[in-house]
């Protein structure tokens, strides 16, 4: 690629100005857009992975997922702002993930487990009502404790240059940490005894009980892992997307968009769906119109629903 095709900033500006476009299409802009799309996509994927993972084991959709994202972002803010300082942001992120994990581990047996005492047909209703109630409770709690204000944990990460392209330090850090978290998740699921038991429970709850495994304990662990992924996403994105009581709402919607794109219950679906959503949004915002950023994801959802109603990796009749 030569500078004349628009690789250097001044060249692209020049080209755009010469043709009188308001939107500049250049290779540089494309690369930058794709990069930032992938970066944010991985964080969306964390959310979606959490939703899908909880569903595949506990067999319920946690509508309060965004509120665990919110909890993660608040812990991050408190840890960075009051306790550790900007330099220890990564430690704060680990604390945030661990904190949300604990909240999940405590809440699941109290709120979700009673659903299994009910007849099969009513379980979904029960779980839906309970998790939506939890959503409202946690949001109100955030308002009560921190007010309706927006907070932002300090970030002193320098801008990172990827080739000639500048990227916000916090964004790159979030991306790298999200990749690390995905790697840890993969190792836990594939290589540990708990992971083996969790995979078994996802396939057959009854058989796992017959094997002598306490499936309700696995439920709590799965729920905690799922919400910890959301909490981690909240912590990592806090310097970029701010900390406030309803900050989880948008990411929850995106999480569910990804689930529709990738297919409910599919882990690869959550990852690929997350990346696709990130790409669709950033490409749409850069090359079509940025105020409609959130619309492009929904367009993608509609296309997927038309072409593959069960999602890219979904299996027909999984619930049967």
């Amino acid at each position: 690629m030569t500078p004349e095709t628009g690789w250097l900033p001044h060249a692209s500006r020049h080209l755009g100005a010469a043709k009188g476009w308001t939107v500049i299409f250049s290779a540089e802009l494309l690369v930058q857009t794709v990069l930032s799309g992938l970066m944010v996509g991985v964080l969306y994927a964390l959310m979606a992975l959490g939703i899908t993972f909880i569903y595949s084991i506990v067999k319920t959709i946690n509508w309060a997922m965004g509120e665990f994202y919110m909890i993660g972002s608040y812990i991050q803010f408190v840890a960075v702002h009051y306790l550790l300082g900007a330099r220890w942001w990564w430690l704060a992120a680990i604390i945030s993930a661990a904190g949300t994990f604990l909240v999940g581990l405590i809440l699941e047996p109290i709120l979700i487990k009673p659903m299994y005492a009910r007849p099969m047909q009513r379980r979904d209703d029960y779980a839906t009502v309970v998790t939506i109630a939890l959503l409202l409770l946690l949001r109100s709690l955030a308002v009560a404790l921190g007010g309706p204000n927006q907070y932002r944990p300090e970030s002193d990460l320098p801008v990172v240059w990827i080739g000639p392209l500048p990227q916000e330090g916090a964004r790159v850090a979030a991306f790298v940490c999200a990749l690390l978290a995905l790697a840890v998740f993969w190792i836990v699921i594939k290589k540990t005894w708990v992971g083996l038991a969790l995979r078994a429970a996802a396939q057959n709850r009854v058989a796992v009980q017959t094997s002598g495994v306490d499936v309700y304990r696995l439920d709590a662990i799965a729920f905690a892992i799922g919400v910890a992924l959301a909490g981690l996403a909240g912590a990592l994105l806090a310097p970029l997307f701010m900390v406030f009581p309803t900050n989880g709402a948008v990411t929850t919607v995106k999480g569910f968009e990804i689930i529709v794109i990738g297919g409910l219950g599919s882990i690869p679906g959550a990852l690929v769906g997350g990346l696709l959503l990130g790409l669709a949004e950033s490409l749409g915002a850069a090359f079509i119109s940025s105020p409609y950023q959130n619309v492009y994801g929904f367009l993608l959802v509609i296309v997927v629903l038309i072409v593959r109603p069960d999602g890219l990796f979904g299996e027909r009749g999984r619930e049967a």
Partner: protein
Amino acid sequence: MSGPLLEAEGVTKRFGGLVANDAVTITVAPGEVRGLIGPNGAGKTTFVNMLTGFETLDAGSIRLGGAALTGLPANQIAARGLVRTFQVARVFSNMSVRENLLIPFLAAGSPGGVREGQAKAADLLATGTLEHLAEEPASVLSGGQRMLLQACAGFMIPAVRLYVLDEPFAGINPVVKDALIALIEHENKSNGRAFLIVSHEMAIVRRLCPRVTVMIQGRVAAEGTLDEVARRPEVVQAYLGSAAA
């Protein structure tokens, strides 16, 4: 161990107006292989479900080796040595045959860990003639092989003392059937495990079970050797209808 292994006393279950199990009392001695037979709808599977914690009891009690099991969750009952199979084999289809066997072993938290589990799994796969399929996902197995795998998985629980097999021989081919019979005889003779086998296959029941219990309409109707109970008029009537009586 001098006393009975399993003591189920007055076990009762109602579904609405239907009494599925009416004060069922069954005792199984350590190392015994007991048959549980009866026409369809006699309540055999309901009884098995209550034994293994998949249904609650409306009345009665269940003890294993003298310790009460009543009200415990299914996984704890299994961990204490009362293990079962299902009529429709429940295996983990996306996992390899070997992984299927490791899960119950590791769940028990045996000190031997994965290495001992692998060795035990290898033994069982050899006895059960599933060796060549060890690394295959369970989804490729035939119905009979799944049943065999399910049975093997139960033996991987180190504490298993009483193994309840619910219709293990239904609809499986003769080769797999023989492998399953061999497995049961082996585990009974060399490891002293007791069995309660629910089956309609009288030839196999005669071969494996010195004593059988007959359930009819939710009650224990007879107990004894297969030939003894087969002569009882109420048993004949339940199986063949009143015209034959």
